[in-house]
Structure formats: structure tokens, C-alpha cells
């Protein structure tokens, strides 16, 4: 039986090349199509210069471009500028209005999933549910490390969704929560900045053993008298818990899209850090239907020593996805 899991990319993945003017959005879409990643996740505040005053003609232009490459939108990444002003936070009404603006644009673009930033308050989202239902957009709170699926902040959103009985509020996991091993790209960067290999090895070993991060930070900062790069590397552990992949089944009804975070793939197309080999089988077991959307975030860790090649990194991740999803040459392509 073919899996219902589709492959896609977030335009976030190509931020290095787009920032430098080496790729435009169509280059990204064209490349995604070439690796069978037909679902496109967009950050309007990154990719649409006229945001928030996007015209119907612009939207039509996007759709024509996507169709040229056989692609389609999967998800809209929203932001909420509660600190728009320096003299006060947005009021609750203003926050609801900002989200409603995004929901309306998302709907106009024909997108049915919206990534909601994790800091948005559940009671604000509760007020947005009627609009989300009317516009048929699923608001998925991004479960981003160091949060995890069972984190009580996330459970508050689940509680709202259950209480309202709505299908338009839930979560949207960022696979960074399944970082099982310390990413070699981060370690190498800290070593280039002056961290000593014996200290970075200690940090990697502690993480591998899943020691409470505060202990490791204390060991490195106080007992080993770590230098600033070493302490900064130890502090990255605060942002990198490893959530239990076995919980995916419990939460699967609450998400329809996944941000497939990664920092770098090996040449033989393996992710040395994230436990996709445990996560994807759980998704398959749950019969989950939705898109695995590449979110390459390695550029910032390697740009000091090499030209970033986001395409090659994303290509390798999709080779891994094909392997783990059991896609054959002709299998998933037309799904």
C-alpha cells in the first residue's frame, strides 16, 4: 500500500542563495520539482515582497509558476509581530486581527495549512478558530525544540482544540525535536571558533547519553573552565532535547504538515543528527497523511568556510525520505 506521506520543501531551505541573489523563488520551485518534492511551503514575509498587500494578480502569477513545474502550495508560515511598536505590545484584538489577516491571505492563496509560531497564546488562537473554520485553514502551532509534543504549553493548544471540537486548530511539528545525536556541522563550527576537540567530544558524549543539559553546561563552564566557544556549544544543548518518537501516534490527529528540519546530510544521504529512521516508521504506522517539508537550516553553520549548497543538501534529504518511505522510481511521483 502506498503511503499517504508526500514530500515537499519549505522555501526557508534556500535562504542562503535567495539572500545572496543566487536563486529566485522559481529556481527553488524548479529544483524542488526536479527531486519530486512538489509541495511548496512559503514564508510570505520572506518570499512575497508586496506582503501584506498581495494582489490577486500576484497570487495568480505564483500559481502559474507553480503549475509550470507541477508543484502546489502546502503551507503558509505566519509571523505575529506582537512587538511591532516599541511602546507597547499589540493588544489581544490587534493580535487576532493580524492572524485573521494571515488566514485570509492564506485562503486567497489556496493554502489549507498555516504554521503558527509557538509563542502565540492559545487563548488568542481560540479566538481565531471561527475565522480559520470559515476560511478552511488549519492553524498548526509549530512544536519547535526545546518544546516537545507533550510539553504543557503545547497541551494547552490541544486542550483548546479538543474543547472546541475543531479540526482547524492543532500543531505542526518541527523535526528538530527529534535531534538524537549532536550535529557534526555545529561541532565543527565551534571547533573553528576555538573549541578544543576534547571538550567538544565531552559535550557530544554527554548529549549522546542524554544527560540533563544544565549539568553539562555547568561541567564545561565551571569545572572545565571552558572558553567562550566551548560554553556556547554546551549551551546549544538547552535547545536540543530529544523527544520520544513513540508519541507521534498520539498526536497524529492534530497535525497535517511537518517541517523536516536538518543541519546537514552525509554524502550517502543520511541525517547524522535527527532520528528520521525512527520517526517516519511511526508516521507510517499512524497512517498519517501530509507533507514532509524540508527545512534546511545548516547554512548558518557552514557559510564561514564554504559556499552553501542548499540544493544538494535538500536533494540528499529527499533521497533519505524516498528510502524511508519505500518509494519506488515511479511510486510517489504522481501522488
Amino acid at each position, binding site marked *: 500500500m502506498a503511503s499517504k506521506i508526500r514530500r515537499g520543501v519549505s522555501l*526557508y531551505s534556500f535562504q542562503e542563495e535567495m539572500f545572496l541573489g543566487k536563486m529566485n523563488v522559481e529556481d527553488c520551485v524548479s529544483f524542488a520539482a526536479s527531486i519530486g518534492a512538489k509541495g511548496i511551503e512559503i514564508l510570505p*514575509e*520572506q518570499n512575497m515582497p508586496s506582503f501584506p498587500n498581495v494582489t490577486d494578480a500576484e497570487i495568480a502569477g505564483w500559481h502559474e509558476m507553480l503549475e509550470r513545474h507541477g508543484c502546489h502550495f502546502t503551507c503558509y508560515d505566519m509571523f505575529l*509581530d506582537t512587538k511591532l511598536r*516599541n511602546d507597547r505590545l499589540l493588544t489581544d484584538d490587534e493580535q487576532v486581527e493580524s492572524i485573521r489577516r494571515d488566514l485570509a491571505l492564506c485562503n486567497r492563496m489556496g493554502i489549507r495549512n498555516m504554521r503558527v509560531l*509557538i509563542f502565540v497564546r492559545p487563548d488568542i488562537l481560540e479566538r481565531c478558530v471561527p475565522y480559520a473554520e470559515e476560511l478552511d485553514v488549519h492553524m498548526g502551532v509549530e512544536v519547535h525544540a526545546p518544546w516537545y509534543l507533550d510539553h504543557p504549553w503545547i497541551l494547552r493548544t490541544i486542550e483548546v482544540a479538543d474543547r472546541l471540537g475543531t479540526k482547524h486548530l492543532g500543531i505542526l511539528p518541527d523535526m528538530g525535536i527529534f535531534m538524537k545525536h549532536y550535529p557534526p556541522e555545529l561541532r565543527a563550527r565551534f571547533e573553528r571558533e576555538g573549541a578544543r576537540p576534547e571538550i567538544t567530544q565531552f559535550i557530544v558524549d554527554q548529549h549522546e547519553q542524554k544527560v540533563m543539559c544544565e549539568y553539562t553546561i555547568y561541567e564545561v563552564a565551571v569545572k572545565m573552565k571552558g572558553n567562550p566557544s566551548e560554553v556556547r556549544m554546551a549551551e546549544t544543548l538547552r535547545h536540543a532535547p530529544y523527544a520520544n518518537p513513540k508519541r507521534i501516534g498520539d498526536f497524529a490527529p492534530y497535525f497535517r504538515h511537518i517541517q523536516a528540519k536538518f543541519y546537514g546530510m552525509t554524502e550517502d544521504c543520511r541525517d547524522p543528527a535527527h532520528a528520521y529512521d525512527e520517526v517516519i516508521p511511526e508516521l507510517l504506522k499512524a497512517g498519517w497523511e501530509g507533507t514532509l517539508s524540508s527545512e534546511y537550516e545548516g547554512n548558518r553553520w557552514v557559510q564561514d568556510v564554504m559556499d552553501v549548497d542548499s540544493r544538494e543538501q535538500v536533494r540528499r534529504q529527499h533521497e533519505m525520505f524516498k528510502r524511508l518511505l519505500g518509494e519506488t522510481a515511479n511510486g510517489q511521483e504522481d501522488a
Partner: protein
Amino acid sequence: MFDKYLIDPDSVTDIGPADSPTGFSFTTKLGYYRGLTLSMLEEMTVAVDGEELPREAVSFDDGNGPITLDEMETTYDRRWNFGAPATLSVTYPGGFPKGEHTLSLRQRLRISYMPFPAMRFTEKTIVKE
């Protein structure tokens, strides 16, 4: 995340009369993976050889007209887009100094989902004949 790309070192140009420049300008980008409304740019601090220039000396233009940093603070209807080059013009009598000097830029961004302001910094060596 894009700190090293914040200043285009080849863009540094004097402004004002050629024989008595009143300052210099250079091309910069926003150090962030999306665009921001101008009100969220808290600081763009320019320094020559490590010496910071006064905030009032700096003027920003992303192609939609020059604006001071103080004016940006309450500008809610104009965005600086992702990857979009903008010009920072700096009052600096005599223009950018001749010879080898450093030019640095610190951006302080107010990102709502982060508890503290995001700081971006770059320093480039500029050689002017």
C-alpha cells in the same frame, strides 16, 4: 545568520562635493530570514575603526526614500524586504578615510517571538586610495 553579508565592502562611496565630502554611504542588507516592518529595526550602529558614529548621522534608504533611524521607530507601513539591498548614508565630514580602515555595522532587531533583541554584527576592512 547572515552577519558576514551585512556590508557590501565594494559599495563604500563618499557623498557630497568630491573635493569636500560630507560623508559616505554603503549597501547593507537586513540580517534576518524574512523582511521586517521598519519600526522593528531598533539600531543600525555604524563604526569606523571601532568608533561608533552618532545615531543621528545615519540615514536609511531601501529605494523608497531616505528616512532617519528615529523616523523608522514609528514607521509601521513600510517593510525592509528579505535580501533587499538598502543604502545607509552616514554624515562623516571628509568622507570615508583614505588607506586601510575598518567599517562595522551592528543591527538590533526586535523579533517578537524572541525574548531579547536579535543582534547582528559585521566588520569589514575597507581600503580606499
